[in-house]
């Protein structure tokens, strides 16, 4: 399980970085999305992987904390997901405006000579 997920994180992140370094703004956007998947999973995995241990308490009687997974990385990632949507939107709009102004979708604002 751990091996699978860490490989997945590596592939998501690596693909993201590769796209991040590409010249076209759309590639960069897709790259940032892939990177955010990878990073979110990475942060989430810091709470270790457990199945069937969602951090939902029982209303009746004490719940042993050891039986539940770590809620802190989850809380971190939850807001990160929403914020990353917002930054994607911001970047998309900057990309649209930049393309309108410069006539190209190259991230440098001009085509390579």
């Amino acid at each position, binding site marked *: *399980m*751990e*091996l*699978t*997920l*860490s*490989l*997945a*994180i590596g*592939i*998501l*992140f*690596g*693909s*993201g*970085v*590769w*796209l*991040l*370094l590409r010249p076209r703004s*759309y590639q960069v956007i*897709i*790259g940032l999305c*892939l990177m955010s*998947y990878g990073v*979110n*999973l*990475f942060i989430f*995995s810091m*709470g*270790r992987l*457990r199945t069937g*241990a*969602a951090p*939902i*308490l029982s209303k009746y009687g004490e719940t042993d*904390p050891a039986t539940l997974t*770590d*809620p802190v990385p*989850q809380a971190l*990632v*939850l*807001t990160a*997901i*929403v*914020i*990353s*949507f917002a*930054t*994607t939107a*911001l970047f998309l*709009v900057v*990309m*649209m*405006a930049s393309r309108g102004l410069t*006539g*190209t979708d190259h*991230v*440098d604002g001009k085509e*390579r000579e």
Partner: protein
Amino acid sequence: MFEQNLLLALVLMPLAGSLIATTLPVNARNAEAWLAGAVMVAGLAVLAVLWPQVQDGGVLRHTVRWVPSLGLNLTFRLDGYAWLFLCMVYGIGGLVVLYARYYMSPKDPVPRFYAFLLAFAGSMAGVLISGNLIMLVVFWELTSFFSFLLIGYWHHVPQARDGARMALVVTAFGGLCLLAAMLVIGHAVGSYDLDKVLQSGAALRSHRLYPVALVLLLIGAFTKSAQFPFHFWLPNAMAAPTPVSAYLHSATMVKMGVFLLIRFSPVLGGTPLWFWLVAGTGLATMVLGAVVALFRHDLKGLLAYSTISHLGLITALAGIGSPVAIVAAIFHVVNHAVFKASLFMAAGIIDHETGTRDMRRLSGLMRLMPFTSALAIIAAAAMAGVPLLNGFISKETFFAEAVEWHNGTWLDDSMPYIATFASVFSVAYSLRFIHTVFFGPAPTDLPKTPHEPAAWMRRPVELLVLLCLLLGVVPSATVGPILNAAAVGVLGAATPDYSLSAWHGFNTPLIMSLIAMGVGVVLYALLARRLPEGPEGPPLIHHIRGARIFDRVLLLTSWKWPRVVNRLFATEGLQMQLRILVVLAFLAAAWSLWGAARLVPRLSVASFDPVFGLLWLVGSACALFAAWTAKYHRFAAQVALGGAGLATCVTYAWLSAPDLATTQLLVEIVTTVLLLLGLRWLPRRREDIASDNLLSARIRRARDLVIATFCGVGLAALSYAVMTVAPGPSIATWFLQNAYSEGGGTNVVNVILVDFRAFDTFGEITVLAIVALTVFALLRRFRPAAESVDIPEQQRVQNAADDAAEDRETGQTVRDYLYVPSTIMQWMFAPIVTLAVYLFVRGHDLPGGGFSAGVTLAIAFLVQYLATNVRQVEERLTVLPVRWIGFGLLIALACGAGSFLFGYPFLTAHAQYVDLPLIGKVPAATAMIFDTGVFATVMGATILMLIAIAHQSLRSARARERDREEARETAGTEGRRV
């Protein structure tokens, strides 16, 4: 306690006065002067009340607890030495305020002037009574700052701006050095408390960082007190209004450097390094200032260089450092402040009444303004060190120390000669000031006809000159006790016996004074004719201007060198910058993790789950496919991106994170819509672009592939290493134990978000709101590229098919596109809204909450937009996303602030369960109100961004219609014309 509060008042009164001064009307000259004067008098009154506390060497302390948990306190400390300086700040401050009332023209905006002046006085008082080294530096920099604002008061004058900037750069630079010095001293002593530092002199002097601390502290003191080679800012600061020059640049602020030197001389002084640096600099400055002063034609320029010279004298005394020298230094600080402030005011009166400060044009004013002239002559004589005036005694003590004190160096041996030499020039420039301005023939070509100024403008000068006389004739009766208290404040038990009297008998210092006066008179007599024709500065060396060197250095460091560095190391290309950033980030991570032995992973495949493996086989393939196709097949890349997102979503669900899975799924939907909206505005791309297959492009891609592989492998290894190590103790346990009992919710993730860490969430929704508004604002001026303005190709093809068919009207195919799904989507509105409410309400106990509910509601609206067209939706639905955002933030804020009412800190939540009929027990935590705010903000932000982008198509459609109509109209008119 009463005295302690008075101590605070010394700093707070001027600062409060400054705030009030800014609120008065622009032309309220009298009100401003009364206000400022009242503050100064009140300050003096406070000092009078506090005098008994400090007169016998007592120290008054007051600590204001600020951040006790960090050990940060504001310590104030008043001893006799600070008391004396405060007296000057408030006393001369009061006189300057009175003088400025008559000096400032009705055209000058006075609130700014008095506000800065009072703020300066407050900062100055702050420096003087700081009992903490860091606090002292903060106030020190504040004085630099207000000095900058005051020099630049007439900011329409270029010289004022340049002078202000120069003063700020030099003194603020010194202040930074001082901060570094204080940090080093604090490190060496182990405390930033001034009392502790003053007691650890021996330890400091033997510390290995002593030279560093000393040099840094001296740079701070020398820049402030205009010591060579930092002296050049002071003459340029003369562009300030004269009251400012009199107050800041002669009497108070420039004395702060020597204040610090004298204060620290028992701690840091007494070493050869101290002697050479401080006495050497002091003597050099004294000579340089005196010589240059003689050759200046500008009255204020002469006075400025004279100030530099006298500050050099005080510095030299501090450099000698013997107890008698320290007493003399303190005494000379007072004397200089008194005569120089009066001289500046007199120079200001002359400038005010004649319209010029140029000594080549001024002459014979004795006849026209006899009172002012007499006052200025006495003050100038005090500056020259004439007996029975106050400059004399402290100068004599300096001579005596120069002769009697020895440490066997050549500098020490030559000190009497240097002192006499500087004194010769001091006599000569004073004589020049007196002779050229007040005697000789009546002036001819003055801009104004001079006459005596308003009586109250002269009063401050009269008072100061009276002080010159009193201090000179009966020193021990006037300043004796104060000086003694100040000396005890610095020296403590080492305070020497000294005699303050005008007559010490016919001894060596007196002979030196007489020689200086005789030679000075002869020197002036020889030069008098030639001085007016000469350049502004001494012959030969007037070409070397500190200010010019400063300008050149500034130009080099702030413009030329940065440009070179920029050319060498910077790139305009974002692509290159990103590449460097990624590589640096990778290296930083690799460097910090290198050799972290406990992170060596153990390879284990025991927990391998084939289904999970299959999931990520697909997920990884999607990610790679997206990376592969993002350039030429954007839509395919987006589909693949969605695949990777879904795999992520399933992973969250699989690994006990239902909240994340929900949120990820919902956000996945809106992200897809977002990117689809963006596709419309991108250029067409064909695979046959030649440059993409060039060797250089291939090399670039290969290099990036290597970087990406390293990053991917690195992160994979890191996450594997962490995941296979057993977790240490974390705060998670606390959250799990207390979520229900304290937060009243069983969904721990949600309780963390809206209760325990609600402040973070509040910050995050604020960010979300800011981003949404930015997107909205950016799009208001959006201009699409020319090739994207037209209707998309697909619609054109369909419209052409409509046109070609007999029985179809144009646009019918587009309108009926996906007719069945769009009808279903319209019906989905109510169910999705219900789902949003459901997710929201159960959020505190089960997966859901404000974030996911907000996105869900946004999707409900979005689906309507997708199903029909924008116009149709907006006819039926009114969504005001900006208000949703605004109210959401307000609700969250109000919920947080509500806890103030019950005496709890911001965002303290309260939880309980309420029994509702029919529904049963429902959670009723105040965190739910906060979650409502989150919900509204998230919903508003999401919908605002998406709809703003979607509207761009509408805008260009409108633009197209407008163009078509215009074209039709012009065609019509032209047709008629034909």
